[in-house]
């Protein structure tokens, strides 16, 4: 939900944007680098898709 909100407001988020938007989400597994990658991948796909 945080990621969707971020991408709606900021289609091309910077690392800092991602950090700020996802700052309150706890992943106990520690997959944060993957979460960043997923958001960046989604951003590219959304932009490409012309949405």
């Amino acid at each position, binding site marked *: 939900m945080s990621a969707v909100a971020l991408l709606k407001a900021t289609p091309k988020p910077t690392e800092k944007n991602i950090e700020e938007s996802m700052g309150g*989400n706890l992943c106990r*597994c*520690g997959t*944060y*680098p993957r*979460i960043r990658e997923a958001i960046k991948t989604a951003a590219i796909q959304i932009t490409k898709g012309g949405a």
Partner: protein
Amino acid sequence: MAARVELNRRGFLRVSFVAAGGLFVSLYLDPKSVSVAQEGPMPQAAAKVYPPDAFVNIRPDGKIVIQVNRLEFGQGVQTSLPMVLADEMDADWSNVIAQLAPAADVYKDPLFGIQIVGGSGSIAHSFTQYRELGAKTRAMLVAAAAERWAVTPNQCRTEASVVHGPGGRSATYAELASDAARKPVPAKVNLKSASEFRLIGKRVKRLDSGAKCNGSLKFGLDLDLEGMKVAVVAHPPVFGGRVKSFIDTEARRIEGIRDVFEIPLAKGTGVAIVADKFWPAKQARSRLKIDWDLRGVEAADTVELWTRYKQLAGTPGNVAASNGDANAIDKIPAQKRIVAEYEFPFLAHTPMEPLNTTVRFDGDRAEVWAGSQFQTVDQMAVAEVLGLKPDQVTFHTEMAGGGFGRRAVTDSHVQREAAVIAKRLRGTPVKLVWTREDDVQGGYYRPMHFHRVEVGIGPNGLPLAWRHVIVGQSLLAGTPFESFAIKNGVDSTATEGTADTHYNIPNLHVTAHHPRVNVPVLWWRSVGHTHNAFVMETLIDELATRARIDPIAYRQKLLKPDAKKLLRTLELLDKATASWRNKLPKGHALGVSCHECFDTGVACAVDVSIENKRPKIHRATLAVDCGIAVNPLSVESQFQAGIGFGLTQLMAKGAITLKNGFVEQRNWDGYVPPYIVDAPVAVDVHIVPSTEAPTGCGEPPVPVISPAVVNALSRLTGKRYRSLPLVTV
């Protein structure tokens, strides 16, 4: 010959050696009936038997169901072990379904002899087992096809669940399964050479990611059975406290409360509340008025413990390692000596999915549903509480949301509590939930440790003498594993990573004290390596800095020539970081570490700056030697996330503390795990190409990250960081 550890009903370990045995098979036999049959008529001392059908079921629709003899709790074993079996079987991967096996003899770890996820052993110990199972199943399918076509097996080849024979003939595994089931299980099979692997070594996506992403996957906590009740327990505020009396009038006023009663705990007693749903149970618990009897209960206090530990560290303990001259350090001049004292706090595991277990007791049978890392032990514990034999307890392995060691508890305290409650509610399934607060305050922590190290530096800048005292509670004293891990008064889980260091230190003297403290302790992902790697890798780095030698080169120089895995990872790390290591922006510094544990070598380099008085990790590069990487995608995930978990140690509020016996933290507000801002922005994982047997990847990521980060901080600030948590930079 395989080492086999038998945990008998009194809970003691005996080690026996048995030859790997023959197999029997019928491919459609129900796995459960096979395991029951084994526990019944088969003699106790029988050789280990792995009926392939207990692991593989070829369904008429072509789906191949593979049983996983481990708990899946995020590490990806539910994908990797089926890959191993399916590869040797030449099964069509797109039709493979993985299931978590229930507790049964056939699913015990071939090396440990109990059903367990631990010691990073899932792939390491079951790789050959699953390959053989796959190869034997394939051989039986080929034999059935060969007979059908009156050809020899070696005229047939297999691919994607189809046997192809001469003259263009072919048959699917599903078509052949019932004939194959009547074939004898081959005693020996040829396994594939590495070049023949179709799945092993490939980046295969995990089988459960879809269900995890859309939320449809069910964890143990999601279990909802007909007529099920939910229980919580009020535990004593100090470990070992007992209920003197309690008033439940207010608690019972809440709608949906079914029962309130006192129960025995692993230590002391508590009050159980059973309700229709979780929330009423939790609300009722807060309304209970309990008068606790804390007489004779030691009130542990971490401030006092540090004083006591520091004093103990000034005296030699029981000898864990003694190479060369124990007093060599005394002959080295003071200016060539480093004296370092380290503090490591209690740490809680706090997996995302709260601890839980569901039990239904039916008088002569019981059924258990638990995300357990320790099925054999937990099944026995439930059986003991209910007065049953283990084989009267059906034990389902539920998907779990993390664990990090917390779901492998030698006293099975969660399962025992659940069984005690279920016994009273005979016939009704009861789910016991330990809330996060119960977990944070409930003990079973990584023990706190104090290290005192004196290092004497030789003329070449390398350590010549090393005297090291480790103080910390024993994990295994008083458990069934005591005789296994405690030698000479030293619990090897406290000294691992130091006493057996791969560095070539001519005069190495390591001793340990294990004070008894009234705080339950437990292994925390990578166990003793969590603190030992930190001490070793920060001191080695300090020595490298002092000697003005590159931190990678210094380690390469100091490692023993037989530390092949670490040397290979350092070589790879050197290459992988060449593009950035010596070109960091102003205000950034490099931090390096390396550590081998559970037979996996890891080297780590980080790019760190200081932001808001905290370390900011811009990048982490890891080099890993884990033998054959069965699923490189899974190995990469383990390392990316495992270093995130390891950073728990560096969090400003990454400590459990006790005052007068009371735990001072309650939840993630007081015991704060890493958030995205604390984790590396990017992690690249490089795997050493290998044909050696695969080794574990669950725990080895954890120890390297914290020392690498503080080594970078030391370069930035000139300070040394020896006390965790990292409160100030």
